[in-house]
């Protein structure tokens, strides 16, 4: 889909055509999910926040002045919702079954991978999820995160190396059990 078509869809949404918004959901859902997963580190929370962000986008689309900036705009909405979520977690220690569940030594590869991704620092996790889950290259990650291209490359590299260390550490621990 090209930018012109995006713009016409956004204009239709702004005129009250909610059905047109489904096109934007389809196109940007993955980007929003990748950012939320990178920021929150938890698949379920990321799914909830992505849905919330897309709905909030629909409610506020009339406020979007530059249709070209839709991706940036919807990612900012998602980012702010993730920050709200941190604030809530900080203020209320809501018991989270998934967080407190001890990891099983027989957990499968996907569980191990999720745990390792969650243990990465946020500044590395976000570019990693954008790279693998959204298929963004280093240049687009740099643009999205407003950092230099070399820093984006550095973060992807470090994230990948630290992920390996976390996975290796876990495998070693499991072997000891």
């Amino acid at each position, binding site marked *: 889909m090209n930018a012109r078509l995006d713009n016409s869809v956004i204009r239709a949404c702004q005129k009250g055509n909610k059905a047109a918004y489904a096109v934007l959901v389809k196109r940007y859902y993955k980007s929003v999910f990748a950012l939320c997963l990178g920021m929150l580190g938890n698949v379920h929370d990321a799914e909830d926040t992505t849905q919330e962000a897309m709905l909030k986008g*629909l409610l506020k689309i009339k406020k979007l002045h530059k249709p070209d900036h839709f991706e940036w705009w919807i990612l900012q909405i998602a980012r702010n919702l993730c920050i709200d979520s941190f604030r809530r977690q900080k203020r209320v220690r809501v018991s989270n079954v998934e967080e407190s569940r001890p990891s099983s030594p027989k957990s499968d590869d996907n569980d191990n991978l999720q745990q390792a991704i969650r243990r990465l620092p*946020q500044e590395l996790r976000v570019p990693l999820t954008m790279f693998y889950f959204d298929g963004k290259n280093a240049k687009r990650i740099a643009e999205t995160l407003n950092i230099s291209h070399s820093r984006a490359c550095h973060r992807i*590299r470090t994230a990948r190396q630290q992920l390996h260390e976390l996975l290796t550490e876990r495998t070693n621990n499991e072997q000891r059990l």
Partner: protein
Amino acid sequence: MNSDCETMKGQIADLVTGILSEAQVQKLQKHLKECAACRDYARALRNEDALLTEFVEKMDSNMKHHQERLSQAIARSCQSRQTATLSIRRIIMRSPITKLAATVAIVGAVILSIHLWDRSTPSAYAFEQTVEAMQGKRSFHIQTYFQQRRKDEFWAEFDEKGKLLRYRQKEGEGPNGSLLTLWENGVQSQYFPPPEGVHLMKRVDNTDGGLEGLEEFDPQTIVQEIHALVAEGKAAMEVQDPPPYVRLKAIHVTRTDGKSLRQVLVVDPVTKLVVRVDNYWGMEPEQVFHKGTEVLEYNEPMDPRLFKPNFPEDTIVIDQVTREVGMDQGEMTDEEAVVETLGQTLGALAKEDYTTASKLCGGAPRRLLTERFGHLRPVSTVSIGSPEYVQNVLPVYRVKCTYRIERDGQAETVNPTFTVRAVSGQPGRWYVTWYVLNKDD
């Protein structure tokens, strides 16, 4: 494995992620032929990549499901409205008799509503009336509550498109005044009352149509979000008619999507405007977290002086808007930049180079560094610890360090914790926050 291998590991990660340049690929392949340890490392990363791909594919199918559900919910919500409107119109327009009946019904309804209006009898209330009444937000003045206690007071103005123009926030009631935050045209001015007595100016962008934290208190957004959640079937709403002696109407909203949030909205039945919203998170009585918003004024004209900085004359000004402050990160990682910024700051203070120290302390003037923190001036640095990341809107790190000072002619070792943060509006620059020097004495 030899000394090159550590460098090569970085390149192997780049190779796997496809960001390695062609020239480096050839050099790396030569090394891989010779080094078994690096070959194992490359193999391990590739195996993990296969796992990652499999995980992403699984996520992809889940994502499609969620995405479709969301799209269908949106499509259903507009189809049902369109179909209902169209079918009623079609039935009415089918014959002259139905047309006449509809006209009689409309005229009757108008007469009846005029009659009811005259007698000032409250008409049936629908939440949509509140959604409608709250639209076209131009200004609000609100008081927020946290755990039933007064918290912050906000005044905000918006343009005709609902974009935030300016706001004022008043936090707490100290003996010397309140912490004030003013924002307009991308510049935030914060006044920290004595003992700080500081006016900090920095660039803060207004993203997403509302500054950080402000949007959650915006009554129009709160109402719209509740309306959308009820429409989506994620929340249930109960409108309670007040007893005759109570003027206001209470609306109870409970979540049906598993979230432990209860909301109570108080609506003025005449204006239909929301005058108070209380959110209660958590189910266990002793763990309930309360956040409230009282709408003191809505769409009332605001005094322009509210948004102009007018602080006491002896206030120390820290300007991060017109001055470039902090240290440039260059190619350093965030953690490296944090340690370097703190190291350079302590070094500059030890040499009494206040021009450099002021820049590294985010523009804190010499007066602040000498008068307030002169007794803590380092003479030599012993060690700087590892930065500890603090979750925030912009990255913030806490760093413990050890350095020597001179007090009454005697050498002394102190261990303060400093806060080093990214400069707002100046990407890639870091500074040591001035006030923590005092706090961690």
